[in-house]
């Protein structure tokens, strides 16, 4: 099977492979990856098998953490190696790609991973390919030429640890030109086949969002969640902590019908007339939610049934302490600001209360093969065994995002693999436990 070079975005490193796995599952293609010979562990370069270019375009059409998919014509640990390897690349394959001939238009792009270049340096690199069969046609910038060739030097990144979970912004991994900290790792010459959807991160940027709340989910992460949840036309996605619907907007972008609920009506309706949750869908021309209802996830309001293809959410980080007078609702304010964690009267949710209810809820309401994607707050001391388990669900991805030195959160992706098994027992008695302040009620799942 043909092998394509994926140039990934150097952000949210732990999310990159799970995203690819999800996109390949959606496309019905097994994911087979190969590490490029000269690449390091954390390299953004990855070879992936794909049947053809159309498949590459399908994958790229919703990829958030893939910049480009290339047909790599040559690679080398240095320029001599690259040019030697290019000599061996068959001209017939260049012809098959429609890249040879006097009337063919093309342009070059020079990119450095871990480096930037001056215009002179770029031209010098491009000129090293003068006289090659694919550089005989006409150079054209706009409109788009027949082929775009990318010259990519991999210098690695020298930001060290801490970058791991999306610490550095796109393009921040650069060093001043000519700083010889580390030798170049590799250089690639490739033909562009498909471009990922980084543009969506800008389109759904929260700065331009009509209706926002204190906990609105970042656009890039929302899009990633939608991909990991396999949001697609024909699917129904539900967010039980909908807030301002950041995650559901991303799911709707990929064609899923969405349903949300929240305990707080103020969040759903908004304070300013004409600015509410629905405005966000209208703003992007998306199908509005099937419904948004006011309910408490801890109560059974949904009839028993396998309704959802995806349950997606960012559960609130804290809840009122049981002794707080609660006039009407169990949870009068489920979306406190992060500072509320420190205030008396609120206790942070620990692993094992809301999360257990959420897992049980998802296990009972997801279709078989449906996915639960949720954020789990944790500390740097997190261990694999801290991740809550449910006998009907299997964790397929668990990606860490560093928030502060003391708080991390992990995006946990689970798939329903077995019929629902009730792990909570009587839900009502559990709730009474909350009200009477009996403390965390973590029930052990049967092994």
């Amino acid at each position: 099977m043909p092998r394509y070079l994926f140039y990934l975005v150097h952000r949210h490193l732990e999310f990159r492979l799970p995203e690819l796995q999800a996109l390949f599952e959606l496309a019905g293609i097994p994911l087979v990856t190969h590490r490029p010979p000269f690449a390091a562990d954390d390299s953004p370069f990855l070879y992936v098998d794909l049947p053809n270019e159309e498949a590459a375009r399908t994958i790229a059409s919703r990829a958030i953490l893939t910049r480009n998919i290339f047909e790599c014509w040559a690679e080398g640990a240095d320029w001599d190696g690259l040019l030697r390897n290019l000599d061996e690349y068959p001209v017939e394959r260049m012809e098959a790609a429609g890249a040879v001939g006097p009337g063919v238009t093309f342009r070059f792009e020079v990119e450095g991973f871990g480096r930037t270049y001056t215009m002179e340096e770029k031209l010098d690199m491009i000129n090293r390919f003068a006289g090659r069969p694919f550089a005989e046609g006409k150079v054209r910038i706009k409109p788009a030429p027949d082929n775009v060739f990318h010259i990519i030097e991999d210098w690695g990144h020298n930001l060290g640890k801490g970058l791991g979970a999306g610490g550095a912004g796109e393009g921040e991994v650069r060093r001043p030109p000519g700083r010889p900290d580390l030798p170049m790792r590799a250089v690639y010459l490739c033909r562009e086949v498909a471009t990922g959807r980084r543009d969506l991160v800008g389109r759904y940027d929260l700065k331009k969002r009509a209706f926002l709340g204190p906990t609105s989910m970042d656009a890039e992460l929302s899009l990633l969640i939608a991909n990991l949840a396999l949001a697609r036309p024909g699917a129904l996605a539900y967010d039980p902590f909908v807030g301002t619907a950041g995650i559901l907007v991303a799911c709707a972008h990929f064609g899923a019908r969405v349903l949300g609920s929240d305990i707080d009506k103020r969040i759903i309706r908004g304070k300013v007339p004409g600015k509410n949750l629905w405005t966000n869908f209208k703003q992007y021309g998306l199908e509005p939610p099937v419904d948004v209802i006011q309910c408490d996830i801890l109560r059974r309001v949904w009839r028993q049934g396998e309704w959802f293809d995806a349950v997606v959410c960012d559960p609130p980080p804290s809840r009122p302490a049981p002794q707080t007078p609660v006039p009407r609702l169990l949870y009068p304010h489920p979306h406190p600001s992060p500072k509320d964690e420190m205030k008396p009267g609120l206790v942070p949710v620990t692993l094992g209360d809301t999360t257990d209810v959420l897992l049980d809820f998802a296990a009972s309401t997801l279709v078989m093969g449906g996915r639960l994607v949720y954020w789990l707050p944790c500390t740097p001391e997190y261990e694999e065994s801290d991740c809550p388990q449910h006998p009907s669900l299997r964790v397929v991805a668990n990606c860490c995002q560093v928030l502060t030195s003391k708080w991390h959160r992990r995006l946990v992706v689970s798939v329903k693999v077995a019929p629902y098994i009730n792990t909570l027992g009587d839900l009502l008695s559990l709730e009474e436990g909350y009200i009477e302040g009996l403390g965390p009620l973590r029930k052990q799942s049967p092994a």
Partner: protein
Amino acid sequence: MKILTHNMLMCNVKGCDKGNFPLRIELSEPVSIQETEFNEDFARRLIGKVDWPALAETAAALGLYDKLGIPELPSTPPEAATADDALLKAMHRVLLEVQVIEGKLVCNNCGKAYSVSKGIPNMLLTQDEL
């Protein structure tokens, strides 16, 4: 609130666990009809999920067949694999295009009334109902 959501919701008052579905819709304002995009796959996959007796009862009670100008939906589950386009479109219209704006959802068992206001059902309970 769409009829699909109505077909999913049940009463959650403590101890009310029999006859708590479907909730009876009491309108205080006529339903509104809003077109949405039809997705055949989505509609077909709903066949096995929907409670058909409740759906037929609700659609008849609200007079939706006349309002939408569509034939009656069956009160027993049709075969998902062989459901034709006309049935799927009728399902789509009833389940996803009819919107309850103002009214109540009343539990036939315990009598609890959940309000629907500006299209949003409020399923929360008071302290003594928990």
